[in-house]
């Protein structure tokens, strides 16, 4: 076998950043973290707006209360409320139309607060009496009937604290998800890479010619499925390689013998050209010619098998009546049987027509009949039987030759196989190879059975893989 230089191996697959598992898990973790953050953000936003709305309602109720207080008593009412307010949750301020402070703990009208009884948030910009810490507040203002402006504000610190907690939770959860995702992606990719590396190692060995190697299988995942597919392919390749090897051995064995004969004959002729008489030279040349013919026959059969094997399409297919085809064949071979006093028993039932290539089927069956006659002893018997089986016609050809031992039955279907006790019978050893090739084109099956000695070749003329 010639060693062909293989293409440079693909880039080192151990670069972890490139493993699919890692990449997908990272993307997945990122997406998950982002969506968790978005969800938390939405919840935070919802909580804040709800609480701000609640605060606004409380302040509006207070404004309603102040509305019921007469203008001249308002300042007192405000002071009283401030005194009552223990928690400093609320702030009040009453201002003249031009913004002067009249009463309350808010000392200046907050900038940008329209007096339209709507809530606005002020982030520590409120002007309060000195000594008070300035919190984030929700403020609301209204104009009194006497043009004074009443400002209410309510501490938002507790709302903010909730929001703060939410933000912390948000960031924490995001970081947690991301890191868990990346870590597990890393671990998974490590594991996956170990398997890929193992596969790579084995593949390299196979590429170097060690066809006994098989990819490791175990986990029932997609990588495993691929590995099993490749293993199946390797089985097939190994089988074919063995077949080719068998063929090469066959060639070596079967072709070397006639070649050696020819060589000997030629050498003898060359040595004794002067001393030999014409008749014996002629005899030797004739013998050499016969040997050459047998060599040529063998090569022709080999080419024929390749040709049939290359037939992928079914262009030559048509309706074939096996009964007439076998009838024709029996007529063709009957004289050959008669010549060797072989009893020729033909039993043909009418059968359903089949789809096939008539010429190829004729060729295949002629090989079977030829074999049956060839391997039968003089005065033996060949029995040809065509019957209708449930799925299609079945052709059985039985001879009483030496037979094929059970353990050799698989092997005889390969090219060049000659059973050891038939080596003395002439032939290319390729007849069954042609039959097998034709069977493969038709998806028919050839079975070998029969008592040893004696062989029955059965051709089942219906597609087998479709069932």
């Amino acid at each position, binding site marked *: 076998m010639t060693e062909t230089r293989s293409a440079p191996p693909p880039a080192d697959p151990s670069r972890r950043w490139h493993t699919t598992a890692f990449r997908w898990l990272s993307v997945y973790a990122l997406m998950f973290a982002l969506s968790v953050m978005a969800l938390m953000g939405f919840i935070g936003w919802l909580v804040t707006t709800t609480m701000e709305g609640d605060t606004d309602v409380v302040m509006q109720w207070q404004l309603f209360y102040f509305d019921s207080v007469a203008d001249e008593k308002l300042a007192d009412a405000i002071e009283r409320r401030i005194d009552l307010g223990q928690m400093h949750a609320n702030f009040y301020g009453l201002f003249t139309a031009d913004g002067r402070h009249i009463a309350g703990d808010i000392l200046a009208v907050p900038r940008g607060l329209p007096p339209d009884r709507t809530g606005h948030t002020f982030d520590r910009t409120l002007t309060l009496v000195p000594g008070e810490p300035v919190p984030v507040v929700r403020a609301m203002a209204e104009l009194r009937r006497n043009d004074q402006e009443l400002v209410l504000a309510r501490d938002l610190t507790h709302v903010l604290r909730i929001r703060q907690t939410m933000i912390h939770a948000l960031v924490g959860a995001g970081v947690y998800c991301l890191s868990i995702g990346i870590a597990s992606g890393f671990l998974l990719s490590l594991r996956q890479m170990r398997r890929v590396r193992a596969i790579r190692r084995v593949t390299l060995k196979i590429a170097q010619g060690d066809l006994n190697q098989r990819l490791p299988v175990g986990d029932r995942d997609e990588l495993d499925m691929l590995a099993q597919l490749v293993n199946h392919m390797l089985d097939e390749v190994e089988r074919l390689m063995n077949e080719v090897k068998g063929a090469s051995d066959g060639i070596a064995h079967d072709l070397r013998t006639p070649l050696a004969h020819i060589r000997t004959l030629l050498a003898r002729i060359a040595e004794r050209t002067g001393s030999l008489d014409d008749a014996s030279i002629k005899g030797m040349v004739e013998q050499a010619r016969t040997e050459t*013919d047998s060599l040529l026959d063998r090569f022709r059969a080999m*080419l024929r098998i390749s*040709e049939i094997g290359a037939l992928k399409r079914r262009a030559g297919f048509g309706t074939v009546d096996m009964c007439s085809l076998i009838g024709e064949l029996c007529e063709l071979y009957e004289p*050959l049987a008669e010549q060797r006093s072989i009893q020729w028993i033909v039993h043909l039932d009418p059968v359903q027509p089949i789809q096939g290539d008539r010429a190829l089927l004729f060729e295949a069956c*002629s090989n079977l009949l030829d074999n049956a006659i060839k391997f039968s002893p003089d005065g033996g018997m060949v029995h040809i039987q065509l019957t209708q089986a449930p799925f299609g016609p079945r052709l059985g050809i039985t001879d009483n030759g030496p037979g094929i031992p059970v353990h050799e039955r698989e092997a005889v279907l390969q090219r060049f196989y000659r059973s050891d006790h038939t080596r003395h019978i002439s032939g290319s050893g390729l007849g069954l190879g042609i039959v097998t090739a034709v069977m493969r084109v038709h998806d028919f099956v050839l079975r070998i059975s029969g008592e040893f000695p004696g062989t029955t070749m059965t051709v089942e003329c219906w597609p087998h893989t479709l069932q």
Partner: protein
Amino acid sequence: MSTTAAEPGTVTASRVLTIEDDRMAGTEIIAELEKSGFLVDWEDDGSEGLARAVSGGYDVIILDRLLPGLDGLTILTTMRTVGVHTPVLMLSALGDVDERIRGLRAGGDDYLTKPFDPDELTARLEVLLRRRREPSAQPKTRLSVGPLTVDLLTRKVTRDGADVALLPTEYRILEFMMRHAGQLITRTMLFEAVWGYHFDPGTNLIDVHIGRLRKKIDTPGVEPLLQTVRGSGYILS
């Protein structure tokens, strides 16, 4: 075998054009054909070959299927389209039945798969030449070779006036041999013509059929008509 070419009646040597790009095969064909008394011209390029084929003057053309310049099938169809009806024997490494049918459908008269026996080529050329020399304008109803006569209508076979009873297959073999009397008929040619299949059935099979026929027409004591040419085929004369 030169016996076939030096057949009586061949006044002038037949001119053969070989269009074949393989130098080895070409040389071999020419040597073989010249030995058999043909005048051979050789062309190894498709388009040149077509030009020569069309210019005429050849009795038969040997055309390789795969050629540089112009494909064998194209040459054949072009020739036939412009009205050149010189018999063409196609040579091809493609022995598949489909390929054979394509070759014959394009206007080829015979199809031979490489590698072939030189005798096979000569024998087939002779058949093509004979067909050209004797255009069967009026269909014959009787064929005779020496004392042997075949009535094509009644399928009756007689030798020296005595009936010879033949089986259908034997009759078909004899009819083919009679139609090509005096020519070398190879086993493959016979198998193709009588049974209509194109694979090699093994030498022995056809020999047995010929043997049966011979037993009936060449009875002991009379001069044998059906001769075996060792290693090649048979001649009826």
